[in-house]
């Protein structure tokens, strides 16, 4: 709303526009302007897009992927690339949670148990990466391990537990008209951003990500950083798994392999969320706030297209194009803003 007020004032608008032209290459300005036009046109013409109900839908839709994206952002920012085991960690967690629930341990115990499993999974991967293992190789291996354990543990069957159960408040409850999962997403997003900005741990994430060698030289070892960030990512995965299981009162190892988005693969979707937000793949630059907005952005475009009646094929294409588009724009912007003295 304040943006609207600002752009209505011709003087401010001209300086804003000039400033953009001054700082960024014309290509960036044209691309962003073009996208903004398409985006706004799509929003205005989509039936029922501009309703409170729809905005709630959009954020709720972004919540689960967003929470996992926030976790993964820590790993990426610290220069440890991506965990390719996000969905398998979630699969292991959801099985752990559902088995605990179906055995009647109650929500609190099941939650604690699942988190313990996730912490161990995260620390294991973090330690291997911290010792110098290639994140791709380590997490691909871990992915197989976790998925294997989860399949064996659940016997490949759907593990379900009867309502009413202690997790319903998380899965289906709401507070002040917002689903509790949406509230969890907002709280986690705020917490993560505060941790990154205002704690020495957050600063270390950025420093080690910006230059691992310089980080080591100034006393910040990647070994403990890799363990910490992988654990955060793992715990976020587990939280999403618990929330999802709480919602559907069941668990199956394939829930995160085939059930998220038309592309179906949760890990890819989470990585896309981190990328579309312009976080640096090499680390050291970006924020969890960007990732949260990235998740909402993808969900907004998707939502808009559903309201326009597009089916799944074009929507997958649109998400792919957006990622490519944002990578190009962010790369250009970064290059443009780096002026050598």
């Amino acid at each position, binding site marked *: 709303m304040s943006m609207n007020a600002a752009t209505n004032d011709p003087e401010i608008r001209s300086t804003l526009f000039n400033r953009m032209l*001054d*700082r960024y290459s014309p290509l960036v300005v044209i691309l962003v302007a073009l996208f903004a036009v398409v985006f706004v046109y799509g929003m205005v013409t989509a039936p029922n897009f501009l309703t409170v109900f729809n905005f709630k839908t959009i954020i709720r839709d972004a919540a689960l992927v967003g929470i996992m994206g926030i976790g993964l952002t820590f790993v990426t920012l610290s220069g440890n690339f991506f965990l390719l085991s996000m969905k398998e960690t979630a699969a292991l967690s959801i099985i752990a949670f559902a088995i605990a629930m179906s055995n009647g341990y109650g929500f609190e115990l099941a939650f604690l148990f699942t988190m313990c499993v996730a912490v161990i999974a995260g620390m294991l991967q973090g330690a291997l990466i911290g010792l110098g293992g290639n994140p791709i190789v380590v997490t691909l291996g871990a992915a197989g391990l976790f998925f294997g354990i989860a399949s064996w543990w659940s016997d490949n069957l759907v593990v379900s537990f009867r309502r009413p159960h202690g997790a319903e408040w998380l899965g289906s409850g709401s507070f002040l008209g917002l689903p509790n999962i949406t509230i969890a997403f907002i709280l986690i997003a705020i917490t993560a951003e505060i941790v990154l900005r*205002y*704690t*020495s*741990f957050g*600063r*270390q994430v*950025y*420093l080690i990500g*910006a*230059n691992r*060698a*310089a*980080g*080591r*030289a*100034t*006393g*910040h*070892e990647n070994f403990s950083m890799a363990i910490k960030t992988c654990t955060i990512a793992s715990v976020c995965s587990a939280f999403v798994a618990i929330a999802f299981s709480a919602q559907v009162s069941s668990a199956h190892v394939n829930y995160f392999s085939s059930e998220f988005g038309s592309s179906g693969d949760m890990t890819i979707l989470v990585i896309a969320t981190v990328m579309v937000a312009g976080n*640096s793949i090499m680390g*050291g*630059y970006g924020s969890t706030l960007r990732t949260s907005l990235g998740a909402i952005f993808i969900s907004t475009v998707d939502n808009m297209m559903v309201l326009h009646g597009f089916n799944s094929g074009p929507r997958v294409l649109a998400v792919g194009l957006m990622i490519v588009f944002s990578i190009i724009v962010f790369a250009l912007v970064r290059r443009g803003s*780096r*002026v*050598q*003295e």
Partner: protein
Amino acid sequence: MQPLLKLSSVKRSFGAIHALKGVDFEIMPGEVMGLVGENGAGKSTLVKIISGFDNGYSGEYRFNGESVNFSSPAKAELAGIAIAQQELSLIPTMSVAENIFLAGHNVPTIADKRRLVKMARPFLDEVGLDTINPAIGVDRLSVGEQHLVEVARLIAHDPQVLILDEPTAALGESDSIRILDMVSRLSKKGKSIIYVSHRLDEIFKITDRITVLRDGESQEPRTADTLDVNSLVELMLGRELDIMFPERRPKTDAEPLMRVEQLWPDGLLEPVDFEIYPGEILGLAGQLGSGSGEILAAIGGAQLTRSGKLSYSGRSFLPSTPKQAIRAGIAYCSEDRKLDGLFLGRPIKENLSSPSLGAISRLGWMSSAAEWKLATSIAEKFTIDASRLSAEAGVLSGGNQQKVALGKWLSIEPKIILVNEPTRGVDVGARAEIYQKLRDLADSGAAIVVASTDIQEITNLPDRIITFYRGLKIGELALQELSAATILKQITDPFNETNL
């Protein structure tokens, strides 16, 4: 005679920063033109414009009498302007000959190795690499030889103008000499050479004329023999430089601050012992490969060693990580600030506070006020522009980057500061400031250990010197024994008795 290349009132700005405010530059056929100036004076920008990396300038650029505007380095190269940059563009796993014919119009479509070797030969002769076999891998050559190969690669395209951007910045004495020889050989053959360097002694040795840039403006080119070091420095700074090296202190009879015992890092042939005294600047002199840098890295916990102990502040230990060294009050700056001295993509203030996050935070929460206070105080001491503390360190010039890389260690109040190549790629003005700062730190009671391959620096900065030659400790020289000749003798040819 017409200038071969001529730029007139060239201007270039990046946003609010005016990098070039009106520069005239010319070079005659067969001339060696020195291009000097402080970091930030606009040398890199000018070189980028000439070589086609940057065409967002205003002003006129004439080459061979015609007005030109190169939209890419490839187009400039095709026209006959080639540049050898500081960062080498060779592929280490390929052979010398293959590197020479990596790309360009003269690359044979089908070439077997033997034919390439034959074709490469004349170009290697031209740069003075007549003794090496073009079939061996580039990674087996010294850094200086690699620079020569890079130039040979450029010469293979037969350029009219060759730009050498600080070719000797990372080289030891003997490799530097080969580069200088090559420059004079090429100029005799009629090539025009633009030689960019911070090493003023070289500039005088090989250039015909010198163009000085200051604050984005060019000075009238001068013939080299009308200038001396002092007048050139004055042109560069726009003022007289009082002193380059601060006054030195004779050795006191204080107890040693640290005893280095049987330290044996990789790169040394045998373990070394020496003492470090409070308040002194100790110099480790040696060429590349002498092992002096490895000793600093080992004390700083950045490199593993085979054996060794440090007796220091009542205990005997050896840090195995930089973290342990930092806890003990030992700061270590490597020779490559871009590799591990700076977080280029992060703000300057974050760089300055990076070693001491604990000191500016409580229970894990950082205090923004404390960080600003710390950063401003360091910036003040190291004359870093305090208004730019929020800017990325990467936008700073080499000299200012080095000040940040060094200055960050003030935040841990170190007792021992180890600096490898304190002024590599740093301009004259910033160099003097860094020397003065190191002296101030020593005067405040810290011990400074400097390793350097720059003979002028190592002769004039330290109070005491230990010399190294190919992994061996040769000798120790006290203040009264320090002379360039003695040091050079010990670090280049210590076992030849005839000259002693």
